[in-house]
């Protein structure tokens, strides 16, 4: 009989402990959900911002043209100015 009462106490303690642990797991899982949603929003915004990356190709072309003009200008200076 005593053993049965001891089992009752153990089961009560186990139930409380189990409830607490499962509650913690559930709380952690619920805290991840808004974070994942925020990651999706940030990724969407970042992807939209990166649409301007294609302008780098235009910048590259402009820089190539500028350096080509610079080379021509330097060639003219090379002819026009005396050497040191």
């Amino acid at each position, binding site marked *: 009989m005593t053993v049965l009462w001891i089992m009752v106490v153990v089961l009560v303690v186990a139930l409380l402990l189990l409830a607490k642990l499962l509650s913690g797991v559930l709380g952690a899982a619920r805290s991840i959900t808004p974070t*994942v949603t925020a*990651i*999706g929003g940030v990724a969407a915004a970042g992807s939209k911002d990166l649409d301007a990356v294609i302008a780098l190709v235009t910048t590259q072309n402009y820089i190539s043209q500028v350096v080509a003009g610079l080379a021509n200008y330097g060639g003219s200076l090379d002819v026009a100015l*005396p050497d040191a």
Partner: protein
Amino acid sequence: MELPVAIIILLIVLIVLALAVFLLATIAELVKINRGLAAALPLVGELVSKTAPVNGVLDAINGTLVTGRDLLEGLALKKAGPDGAGLVESCFPGEGAKFLRRVGASGAVLPIGEDYPRGAAILNSLLGGTAPVPAAGSAPAPAPAASGASPSEAVPGDGRISLRDTPAPAPQEPAEPGRLSAMGARPWESPAPAAEAPAEPGRLTAKGARPWER
């Protein structure tokens, strides 16, 4: 049935129920997380695909800019000689020493400042500016590029070019075809005849002052 046994059975049922409720709720949250990650994954893929060519483009831009920098540094080294590092230092503080390292030279870097009298004198001579006033009791200033003397010695006034109301003396023909020589083109080295007066008062006309236009 005895009371303890009934309580034990009740507790076991409660434990099973608690496990079921909490685990089902956890599974539901994990499903939400999975859906959120599935929605974010394509967006992250877009980020990756859109940033993929950036490295190549930036490397190409850097390569082009380095080429232009090397070209200008070579030109500065060729035309300004020992003053090249100072010119670079004046335009980009802290870069003079790097310039010297890149060209394999050494020595102290002295910033030229906002004005480069030696270059101003050369340009002044090419554009037919006024002749410099040599110091009293001294010989006419030598060619700055060849002498390496202090630039201020070969420059009129404070070493600045004046493009207003300056009669342009006609320089001599270049010594080498296709190459402009400043030797003899400087007014203080050869008393060349005065060039034509500017067509418009206050504007410098270089017409006739450039050897390659004659």
